[in-house]
């Protein structure tokens, strides 16, 4: 297992969960922490409900270094959330900032997806953002979040607060195992025969068109068809360039969901963080960008090994 992403942690990196049962309790327990951060010259970012944002801004006298981020947009997916936080920290650092303290009321929706995405989010914070001067205060609302999400939060944070007080911290789960748990839980490939099947991809332009037409006929929006076509193109390109031929693509249309697999005969990769983390620096570094883009464009991207070889499964809700 590659642990290449586990670089040294930044001295000012801290990942902490805050359990609360009401907005007033969240404000009461976090306002003093945020106040101290501001006093130390740090930036504060709020990814909270409107009520909590309003109350915190008031408690912090509308300090000029408070940034409010759009919560539904940020918590759309784990990869989006982590990407936004990283961009924010890099942008603040480039502009002379010190540390960014982010208070985010975690909310990835309901059902299995909420559990999987919150697991991924916390694992990514533990691994991908540890080289940055970031203090992430992850808000877990015990009155709102599913029990499984609350339980998972206790096992993914090195630091924990309850009722405003530091609580004892259990040993956190290995982030690599957390990512694998989330991936193993994803939507399976349908049993019926696929709507599109390309056994041996050679012409990527033809592949994009082969995928697009049946999806458009099914009523999937043009933008989502373009998103999926780009994702499939990138993963088929990876299969052709880094894997073993033949590269096979299959697409299933189910009510409200498109599932697609891209399979090559190579060994693929085993690192569950592959393609989640953009390379460092301003320019686009070589490698993993296709998978990274696919993760941005699709609802779920899960790589796994099969008897056939190596498969990446894409899911898009429509």
């Amino acid at each position: 297992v590659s642990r290449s992403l586990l670089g040294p942690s930044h001295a000012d990196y801290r990942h902490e969960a805050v359990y609360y049962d009401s907005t007033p309790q969240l404000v009461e327990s976090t306002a003093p922490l945020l106040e101290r951060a501001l006093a130390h010259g740090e930036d504060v970012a709020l990814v909270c409900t409107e009520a909590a944002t309003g109350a915190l801004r008031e408690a912090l006298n509308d300090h000029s270094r408070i940034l409010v981020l759009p919560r539904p947009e940020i918590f759309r997916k784990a990869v989006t959330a982590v990407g936004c936080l990283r961009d924010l920290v890099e942008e603040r650092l480039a502009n002379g900032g010190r540390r960014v303290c982010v208070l985010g009321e975690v909310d990835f929706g309901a059902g299995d997806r909420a559990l999987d995405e919150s697991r991924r989010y916390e694992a990514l914070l533990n691994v991908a953002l540890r080289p940055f001067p970031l203090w992430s205060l992850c808000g877990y609302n015990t009155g709102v979040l599913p029990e499984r999400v609350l339980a998972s939060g206790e096992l993914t944070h090195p630091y924990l607060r309850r009722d405003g007080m530091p609580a004892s911290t259990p040993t956190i789960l290995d982030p690599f195992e957390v990512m694998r748990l989330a991936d193993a839980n994803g939507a399976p490939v349908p049993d019926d025969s696929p709507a599109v099947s390309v056994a041996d991809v050679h012409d990527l332009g033809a592949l994009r068109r082969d995928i697009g037409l049946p999806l458009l006929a099914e009523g999937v929006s043009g933008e989502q068809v373009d998103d999926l076509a780009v994702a499939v193109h990138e993963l088929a390109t990876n299969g052709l360039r880094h894997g073993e031929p033949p590269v096979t693509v299959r697409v299933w249309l189910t009510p409200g969901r498109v599932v697609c697999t891209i399979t090559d005969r190579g060994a693929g990769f085993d690192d569950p963080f592959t393609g989640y983390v953009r390379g460092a620096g301003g320019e686009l570094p070589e490698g993993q960008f296709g998978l990274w883009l696919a993760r941005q464009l699709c609802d779920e991207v899960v790589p796994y090994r099969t008897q056939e070889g190596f498969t990446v499964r894409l899911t898009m809700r429509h």
Partner: protein
Amino acid sequence: MTVSDGLGADRDSHVLLLYRDETQRRASVVAWVKQGLDLGEKVFYATAPGEAALPGLATGGAMTTASHDGQLTFVPLDEFFPGAGQAALVRQALDQGFPGVRLSAHADAALRVVGEEVYQAIDRGMDELCASLPVSALCQYGADADGDRGGVDARLGAAIDSHPDALQDARLQVWRHGNEVLMAGEPDVGSADVITRTFYRICQLQGVSDLVVDLSGLTFADVAICRALLAGTQDHRRAGGAVHFRGASGHLRKVLSLLGVPRLSGVVVLE
């Protein structure tokens, strides 16, 4: 000139045709030659050693007629390439009253026959002919057909360097007009190295002034192409020059934005 006019529509262009297989080469060359014949121009086609003639040209009905009318002439490569050979052919044709002249030859065969240095001198002569007279040239180059990898070796690099104004491969067309570059097609990773080299060369010629890249003719471009555009212009941007990308389709703009391209220094992505 607009994207839909296609390569060669600009009479004074000096185009590098990169082909990966014979089907692609023949289709592109035949289209280019036919365009010249339709315009009443004189077309000189240099045949490489061992190449009888271009099959698509010799057998097509319209082409045969044209050939009989004296519009199309096949010239052996070794007669075509020594020094001032082409200039003499051009003047002769223009004296005969043809409104324009087209010249096509295998750049890779020529590179093998005369060597890189002589070839580049000849190519500069071709640039001058295209710039000063109603002449266009199509230089064919068989890029290494190594699957879809599309690498650029030293010889292909030299060919790209000497054709900064117009380039075509199976999925891509690039033209340069002053400080503006137009791109068309649906290029993917197979064209990435070619794009990097092409833009590197264009930026070398550009100096530090800003470059405008019109992407409106691209119906698709993948991550490798976005990266190639950045890699090819990196030195230019680091030296203080800017690159303005304009005309990208809605989806390409979305991809560029997700990749963080608009945030890079020296990059402007226009609506």
